[in-house]
């Protein structure tokens, strides 16, 4: 038996007072409570839902199968008939050939297990459906002896259980501790002194509920709740896998914060995140919400197979959705039928079909993306809109004033020829690397066949022209090229290391000239791979021209201007060399086409009037319509009128800035043509077997028949009122957050292997209440926080803790260490360093140097951690840049997950590394200095003691005389030390980016800082009590 199960069972027995064999006058056994856990753990491996591993045709998870006649002629279970039940004979047997479970299976029954099984069969072997698969019914709250204690129905359920165990609830928590508990639970921050004072001074009976409402209305509520959702959503600011490059998904994170702060009902919250794009008339914000299922890692490792990783992403969505909403481990059914839960492998892939319809790739699978503004940035957007509107007004005025100039310009333009490009018809084609080069009808050259590491295309063409000034290279796309882009690499990119040309006289082949290019221009340049690098004479350091093939599947054009005109009288053979010699192998240009021009070198440009304008210019003016003339006028303003140009440029800049204020966010989208989903043999991407259509497992209510079975139908199904799991799973998670352990301890597994709820009726009552309230999340928090259960003290003495270490009976208030982000945010809050800006790009708080590059120093794929400055260092932790492969140590050390996968429960450990962090990390040492300043200043203002003030700020309560003595001793000793060692004092005060207060006496300042460090290391500071 696994460890967890042993503890769980032991605990269970302790509570119901069993341990010894059950006494005879106990009520009838319940299958779900007493029998299924035994069968599931010890028997289902071979006699459960998985048809592949089923032995002897026996299935014990269903009544009909368990009581049916087997091939052997026996019946495993004959209800009421112990002696006729083969199961009984087998579990009693000592014969290794008969004994069940078999001795070599590693699974054993205890005497108690045997007793229970026999009694259950004797009682009639009644099966029940697994509790979590039956929709919750709203139970009546039970009667309790102490009817004065309950504040709401929650308390009746809890108290009944406490009374049954012969115990009493704990007294109310003192107010200082209660407000601190509420503040952390609803905002992840400690109460401010003002909030504390207001609450302590509020004598009214509504004081507590008013205080709770205050925090529910705070913007910090959304930040805090969103932060917990990010663990489920495996949100990160990097792409994971080997290179773990940066991604920009924070606009989606802002959406979550906004949704919580608006108290978006949980059903809508669910539908928009899973299928917002499929809603009728979906708004940009609804599409943004679907970023939830694009938060998985994305690989950029060159050698991977696209479909392999695309499959992983889709499966990640299945797993994440299953864990988050169903509390089930669907992944177990990827390779075979689920061993314990009634989920077949086929059903897994039916579920997968919902998420398999995204137009996405495995390698560099960032699309689909869309630039959508953050919902937290409405003000910023309005500011842009106002400015742009104003400029448009100005532009109108400008254009009216300059009609005459416009006419003159038009005339001039008409009489001036544009550069004419002569497309070259290639003669000889040769690839040094062994590619096949084929001449197409439009004179372009298509590369195909073998795709060598390095390659040089040698292309010749003859021209009669002389005085040539420039060459144009078009990198065209072609359906035969990978991914529809212009390059030959699997990711559609190319890297043109060098572009070279030799001109040879046709008349006298001895006469040759290397054409030197002095200027280059391209309509698109990849960052760090600008076209100029194709004529810089070197291939070292991967110097060359590239065009972002992975994300931009479009043709690209470059032009190269020669230092001097070229071309021989009597014809010239132009010998081009397109060299691909970067260390990025197989990055050839896919379909080049070459042209030349004799236009004056200084005026050759890729710019010039666009083809549409040229077409207008070529027509008589009287034929042009008003709108065509307006187009011309607009073009004129752009290129000619100084004032108009300036305004248009400014508008363009603002529009660009407005658009770029928000990065593209990865979102969900549906393929036009559905992709066929298959069962994958053993879960392998390349072993498809049976085709399947989207559907939900049979154990659940069916999808509504009138809806197309897609993600939207799935999302609506999840939040339909008769769904057995969604509401239970959601309220259980809320309970877990507040009390440390869920009513179902295994919040990640509501299946047959999961633990039974400690308070099944309370769970169902809360679930039905959540649905009844319209999935009102704030109302759910309000309800629980207003219960007497929640308000109990956690200062209850050692006995109580030893009796019920996990507080499963709920006979005391919750007490456990704060989560990583809360610890850091609390230090910033009590020291008054916290910057309360809501939303925006992620920031980079303190981190020891070298942590990123010691793991990855590959050029182009790694960077030094760009530690922030000033305010960025003091933002809430939810905004800290989350790099999956190197999570921020301040958070990681305090058990933050790496967010590689959906995390439903964090560990809660207690380690020496945490002690070192709170002692010595610059963030905390600096916070201590600011806390010291605050203690001194506030004590001065109120005429009290900085030690007492500091203690209050950190713990929320008044220190005892004994505690104050220890703190003052520390101050005295430290002041003594620092007054003799100014260097040490300065060293302590210099930690951090902020400047120490020059007005405070050095030794006092350092000593109070040392006191503040002591306070920030108190167990009470890092603990919710």
């Amino acid at each position, binding site marked *: 038996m*696994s*460890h967890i*199960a042993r*503890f769980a069972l032991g605990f269970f027995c302790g509570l119901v007072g069993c341990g010894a064999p059950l006494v005879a006058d106990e009520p009838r056994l319940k299958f779900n409570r007493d029998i299924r856990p035994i069968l599931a753990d010890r028997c289902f491996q071979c006699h459960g839902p998985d048809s592949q591993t089923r032995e002897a045709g026996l299935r014990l998870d269903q009544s009909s199968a368990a009581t049916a006649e087997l091939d052997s002629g026996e019946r495993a279970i004959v209800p009421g008939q112990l002696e006729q039940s083969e199961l009984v004979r087998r579990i009693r047997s000592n014969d290794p050939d008969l004994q069940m479970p078999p001795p070599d299976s590693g699974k054993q029954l205890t005497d108690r297990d045997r007793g229970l099984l026999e009694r259950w069969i004797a009682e009639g072997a009644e099966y029940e459906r697994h509790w979590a698969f039956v929709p919750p019914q709203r139970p009546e709250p039970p009667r309790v002896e102490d009817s004065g204690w309950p504040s709401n129905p929650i308390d009746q359920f809890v108290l009944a259980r406490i009374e049954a165990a012969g115990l009493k609830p704990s007294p109310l928590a003192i107010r200082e501790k209660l407000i601190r508990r509420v503040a952390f639970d609803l905002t992840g921050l400690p109460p401010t002194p003002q909030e504390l004072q207001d609450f302590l001074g509020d004598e009214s009976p509504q004081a507590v509920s008013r205080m709770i409402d205050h925090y529910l209305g705070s913007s910090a509520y959304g930040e805090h709740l969103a932060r917990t959702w990010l663990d489920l959503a495996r949100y990160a600011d990097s792409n*994971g*896998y080997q290179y773990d490059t940066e991604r920009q998904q924070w606009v989606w994170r802002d959406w979550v914060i906004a949704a919580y702060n608006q108290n978006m009902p949980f059903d809508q919250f669910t539908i928009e995140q899973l299928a917002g794009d499929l809603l009728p008339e979906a708004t940009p914000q609804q599409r943004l919400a679907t970023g939830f299922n694009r938060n998985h890692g994305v690989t950029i490792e*060159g050698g991977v*197979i696209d479909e392999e990783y695309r499959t992983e992403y889709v499966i990640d969505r299945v797993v994440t959705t299953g864990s988050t909403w169903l509390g089930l*481990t669907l992944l*177990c059914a990827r390779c075979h039928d689920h061993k*314990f839960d009634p989920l077949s492998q086929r059903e897994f892939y039916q579920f997968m079909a919902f998420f398999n319809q995204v137009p996405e790739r495995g*390698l560099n699978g960032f699309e689909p993306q869309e630039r959508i503004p953050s919902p937290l940035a409405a003000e910023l957007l309005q500011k842009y809109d106002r400015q742009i509107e104003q400029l448009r007004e100005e532009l109108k005025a400008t254009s009216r004033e300059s009609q005459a100039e416009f006419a003159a310009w038009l005339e001039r333009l008409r009489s001036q020829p544009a550069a004419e490009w002569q497309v070259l018809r290639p003669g000889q084609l040769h690839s040094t690397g062994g590619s096949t080069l084929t001449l197409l009808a439009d004179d372009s050259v298509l590369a195909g066949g073998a*795709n*060598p*590491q390095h390659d040089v295309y040698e292309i010749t063409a003859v021209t009669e022209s002389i005085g040539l000034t420039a060459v144009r290279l078009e990198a065209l796309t072609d359906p035969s090229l990978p991914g529809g882009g212009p390059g030959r690499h699997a990711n559609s990119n190319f890297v043109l290391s060098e572009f070279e040309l030799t001109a040879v006289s046709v008349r006298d082949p001895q006469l040759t000239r290397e054409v030197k290019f002095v200027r280059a221009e391209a309509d698109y340049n990849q960052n760090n791979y600008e076209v100029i690098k194709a004529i810089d004479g070197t291939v070292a350091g991967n110097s060359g021209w590239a065009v972002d093939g992975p994300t931009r599947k479009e043709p690209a054009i470059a032009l190269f201007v020669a230092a001097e005109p070229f071309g021989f009288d009597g014809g010239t053979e132009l010998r081009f060399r397109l060299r691909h010699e970067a260390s990025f*192998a*197989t990055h050839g240009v896919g379909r080049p086409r070459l042209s030349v021009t004799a236009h004056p070198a200084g005026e050759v440009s890729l710019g010039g009037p666009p083809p549409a304008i040229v077409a207008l210019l070529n027509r008589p003016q009287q034929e042009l319509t008003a709108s065509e003339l307006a187009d011309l006028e607009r073009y004129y303003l752009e290129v000619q009128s100084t004032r108009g140009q300036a305004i248009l440029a400014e508008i363009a800049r603002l529009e660009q800035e407005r658009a770029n204020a928000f990065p593209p966010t990865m979102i969900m989208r549906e393929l036009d043509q559905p992709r066929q989903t298959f069962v994958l043999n053993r879960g392998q991407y390349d072993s498809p077997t049976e085709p399947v259509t989207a559907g939900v497992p049979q154990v659940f209510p069916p999808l509504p028949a009138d809806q197309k079975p897609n993600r939207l139908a799935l999302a609506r199904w999840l939040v339909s009122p008769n769904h057995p799991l969604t509401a239970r799973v959601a309220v259980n998670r809320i309970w877990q957050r507040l009390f440390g352990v869920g009513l179902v301890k295994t919040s990640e*597994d509501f299946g*047959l292997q999961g633990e039974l709820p400690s308070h099944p009726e309370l769970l169902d009552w809360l679930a039905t209440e959540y649905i009844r309230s319209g999935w009102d999340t704030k109302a759910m928090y309000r309800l629980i926080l207003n219960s007497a259960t929640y308000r109990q003290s*956690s200062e209850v*003495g*050692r006995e109580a*803790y*030893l009796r019920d*270490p996990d507080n499963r009976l709920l006979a005391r208030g919750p*007490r456990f*260490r704060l989560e990583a982000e809360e610890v850091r945010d609390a230090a910033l809050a009590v020291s008054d360093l916290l910057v309360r800006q809501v939303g925006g790009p992620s920031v980079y708080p303190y981190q*020891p*140097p070298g942590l990123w590059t*010691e*793991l*990855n*120093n*590959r050029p182009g794929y790694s960077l030094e951690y760009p530690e922030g400055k000033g305010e960025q260092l003091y933002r809430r932790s939810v905004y800290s840049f989350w790099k999956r*492969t190197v999570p921020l140590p301040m958070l990681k050390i305090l058990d933050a997950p790496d967010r590689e996968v959906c995390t439903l429960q964090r560990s809660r*450990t*207690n*380690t*020496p*590394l945490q*002690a070192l962090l709170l*002692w*010595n*990390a610059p963030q905390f040492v600096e916070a201590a200095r600011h806390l010291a300043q605050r203690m001194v200043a506030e004590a001065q203002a109120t005429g009290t003691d900085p030690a007492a003030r500091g203690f209050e700020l950190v713990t929320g309560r008044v220190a*005892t005389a*004994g*505690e104050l*003595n*220890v*703190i003052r001793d520390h101050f005295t*000793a*430290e002041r003594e*030390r620092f007054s003799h060692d100014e260097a*040490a*004092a300065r060293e*302590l005060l210099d930690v951090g980016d902020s400047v120490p207060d020059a007005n405070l006496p050095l030794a006092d300042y350092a000593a109070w800082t040392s006191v503040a460090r*002591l306070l920030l290391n108190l*167990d*009470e500071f890092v*603990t919710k009590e």
Partner: protein
Amino acid sequence: MNVSPAQLAQAQLTETRRQFFGRGRHGLGAVALGSLLLPGLLQRPAAASGQPDDRAGGLPGLPHFAPRAKRVIYLLQCGAPSQVDLLDYKPSLDKLHATELPASVRGNQRLTGMTAGQGSFPLTKSPWKFVPYGQSGMMLSELLPHIGKVADELCLIKSMHTEAINHDPAITFFQTGNQQPGRPSIGSWLSYGLGSEAENLPGFVVLLNHNTYDQAQPIYDRLWGAGFLPSNHQGVKFRSQGDPVLYLQDPAGTERPQQREFLDRLGQLNAARAAEVGDPEILARIAQYEMAYRMQMSVPELTDLSDEPASTFELYGEEARTPGTNAANCLLARRLAERGVRFIQIFNRDWDHHSNVKSNVPMLCKQTDQGSGALIQDLKQRGMLDDTLVIWGGEFGRTVYSQGGGEGFGRDHHPRCFSIWMAGGGVKAGFTFGSTDDFCYNIVDDPVHVHDFHATILHLLGIDHERLTYRFQGRDYRLTDVKGNVVDEVRGELLVASGEWREASC
């Protein structure tokens, strides 16, 4: 409060120790409670040190049987070193050199995106000689003279194979038994299962060799992560720059007496609160601060090499004086092993030679050979090799055919066969296991899968790989997933006579 905080703190501390550490591992109740409240890592108190039967954390009933190895030093060669050039001697390639790899040998082998488009697959023999080393005459590359010196200690497995062909999934597979992220690493499984015997150090330590080459493998924290195990079982990285352990150093240059005073006052305040509230977690926190305080001594003492005699640097080379070199980390690994650290993993990651094999392989050998060989010799001299398992190997092999071609040829990834070696820790010495075909392309005899490799390591540590499980999301997970067979052939003599070891019951 009637008693002074100091008295109270003292009383509480004593009580903590008595409660959590005082009893040996056979007191199941104490261990169970201890592992619930103070799981795994680093809680052994000073008072309990030196007792042979003592360890912190770990599961009751483990080890399952007599271990051959007590600890592991794993020299992980990320990027994948070339078995063709270093460990898998192939005289047959002299004749086959520059001929085309027959399609029948390649079969339906998946290629990486890097050579999939290559038109030709010319067999390319190693540019270096293989020479016999030691009594056993083990044939290894001339580039490995120091490892060659300890050839008689090596157990060379030439028939490793894996399922992954790209670095990330392959190294994740080696470290966790699964290609996708999310599972616990080997070291964290061992910390969880066996607990820690290190007195003032973590039980699972990671050392990173400096990158020296711009195509070095990126690596990631999750390679030593705890996955779904409690996060205190994750590896602790000892760094060669800044504090060896993050935030180890006090910023104010505090002397030990002041630090002690700080800690005493903190302990008094926390103990007072513990008395008031009753939550044992507070006592655990006091113990963790004590441990941190001891680490502030033990870690600098560990990394300060001034107590090493000149002979050490003759053995490991002068480079061992430069933190972050392979030699320095191998020496550090020995010092960690001496202090009872269970699992020490060195990440060396410059082996991904898609080009310029001729210059890169000798460079990497020069960087790694002496330290690795010295470590074996050193452990042997100290009598520690018997119960320390040393492993050297990468995440897959490299192709016998060249990538690119010409003088600057490279070798691509090759998962179908590769070589690793082990030494000490109960493996057969001077022994070679498994073989590959004349093309160094396919395994001929005794294939060893990654799962088998894991099962074998656990076996050597006294663990039945099928019985070290953790229930997560309703399933009992293991390092070896649902596979893995112990490779019995590589086992040497038992470390402990079997009669002395009684299987613990629970």
